[in-house]
């Protein structure tokens, strides 16, 4: 028995080690190293903090960074506010017959490529788009309005693309909430408000945390939506990274940006877990 275990163990271990070290650990160490190297005045690569100094010295960089962080939090909060009633409706309100079908409907759009979904919003909202066309036809609008390329459209697009990752954990956690608990709270004199804030939300906390982590992470790292419907003034930090890598070809600067984004996302996720007393391995399941 023991002997068999040994070779089996190494057969399992080897590919996993290759995967995690070659594609996760070493690249990120390389990222960290690169971010501390920069070209000095003579065009020689040397060690130093210049890339990070550049970030903090140039308002456009750190302002974009802060904006991205704040907007991601806003998007996370919005998905929660919009998603909770939907998850609650599916698990607790609608009759059990329709539960499966509704869950399926909620999931379906998210199997479709993000690009297609963003494109759908573009042909709906742009100046020559469907919404404008309908508003003009009905006389609600005198001349077409550009609804794309602003922060509101971008936030809506981000909420739309990440919604699923909030709703799924909410549905699964609310599914395990027994009707009895809600009835008991009413029986003891609670009202809709206290049931929501004392029973449902505290109970759903693990789902809320895991949903928020994924939504936040995906929003922070999103490139398509801000790029396609965010417009010129709603610069996203991933776009800065892209610019450094592809446009300016300054990989060292880009690495520093990338590393800062990584620290930000890890920090916020760590804070979220800390505050809600959860841990990552549990949240994933």
């Amino acid at each position, binding site marked *: 028995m023991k002997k068999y275990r040994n070779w089996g163990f190494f057969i399992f271990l080897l590919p996993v080690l290759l995967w995690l070290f070659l594609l996760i650990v070493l690249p990120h160490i390389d990222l960290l190293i690169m971010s501390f190297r920069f070209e000095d005045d003579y065009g020689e690569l040397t060690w130093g903090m210049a890339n990070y100094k550049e970030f903090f010295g140039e308002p456009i960089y750190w302002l974009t960074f802060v904006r991205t962080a704040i907007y991601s939090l806003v998007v996370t909060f919005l998905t929660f506010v919009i998603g909770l009633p939907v998850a609650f409706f599916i698990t607790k*309100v609608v009759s*059990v017959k329709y539960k499966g079908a509704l869950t399926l409907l909620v999931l379906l759009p998210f199997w479709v490529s993000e690009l*297609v979904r963003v*494109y759908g919003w573009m042909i709906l909202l742009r100046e*020559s788009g*469907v919404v404008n066309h309908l508003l003009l036809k009905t006389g609600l609008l005198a001349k077409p309005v550009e609804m794309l390329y602003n922060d509101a459209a971008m936030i809506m697009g981000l909420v739309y693309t990440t919604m699923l990752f909030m709703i799924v954990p909410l549905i699964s956690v609310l599914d395990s909430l027994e009707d009895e608990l809600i009835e008991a709270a009413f029986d003891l004199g609670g009202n809709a408000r206290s049931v929501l804030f004392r029973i449902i939300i505290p109970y759903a906390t693990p789902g809320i945390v895991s949903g928020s982590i994924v939504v936040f992470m995906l929003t922070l790292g999103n490139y*398509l939506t801000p790029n396609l419907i965010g417009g010129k003034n709603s610069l996203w930090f991933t776009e800065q990274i892209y610019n450094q890598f592809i446009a300016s070809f300054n990989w060292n600067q880009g690495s520093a940006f*990338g590393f800062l984004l990584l620290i930000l996302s890890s920090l916020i996720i760590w804070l979220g877990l800390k505050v809600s007393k959860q841990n990552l391995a549990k949240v*994933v399941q």
Partner: protein
Amino acid sequence: MIRSLPQSKTYSRGFRLYILLYFVFLFAPLLITCILAFNDSQFPSLPWKGFTLEWFTSDRPDRVGIFHDQSNLDSIWVSIQTAFFVSIISLVVGTCAAFLFEQENFKFKQLLYFLMLAPLVIPGVILGISILMFANSLGTLFEMQMDLDVPLLRPGFWLVVLGQFSFICTFVTLVVSARLKKFDHTLEEAALNLGANRFEVIWHITLKFLRPAILGSAAVAFLMSFENFNTTLFLVGSETTLPINLYLQLRDGSTPVINSISFLLIVSTSLLALTNLYFSSKQQED
């Protein structure tokens, strides 16, 4: 408030209205995209100028339907190949990882498990740039030290496959692990007791048991790879995948051909998703 309690009319009507609005929000962009794929117009917008299949089938210079649009057809083929290889590699490594974390005990298991989860919380863009740079560093190293040119390490097809694999494998691991947790180990012991060796046990007993999870995660891996944008963006070479190719076209202005591609994507992914859900619900009944 809930279905087991009496509820007021206003409450239940208001709630239903909200859900209805939510579903409109959810499906409006997809439906509009699909509908406009059949509009007989040069632009993907209203007014409706009549039904046409030209954005699928036409081969006129001013109107190239998707079936004759070589650049998009090529990128679809690239995407399919990418997704195929990503799924295969992810399944093999992910299943190994599931066995490793569920059935073995070793030093640093916690650390390794944490590393395995890490791709979930690393933004895709970061994965893309770090793998790009690491491949580049390695390539430079090989060239300097051994005068060796390794095409694998330059942006292109295989680097995209590796980049997507690096995080899709985590999903496969989690899905297969979840199923493996439910596995009754006495079955394995029984097989060992009947004279099978460990390899035979895994092949005949455990993998059979895992098959639904493996097939399900293969479908998910395929879709995730097919639609991936963030990681691919940095690793892509001259052979562009479909999302990248669409993105480039979108930046330059859009034609209804994008709608017709979207229509095909929506229909085929919905079918794949529905089959997957059908099988996974059957698996739960078992």
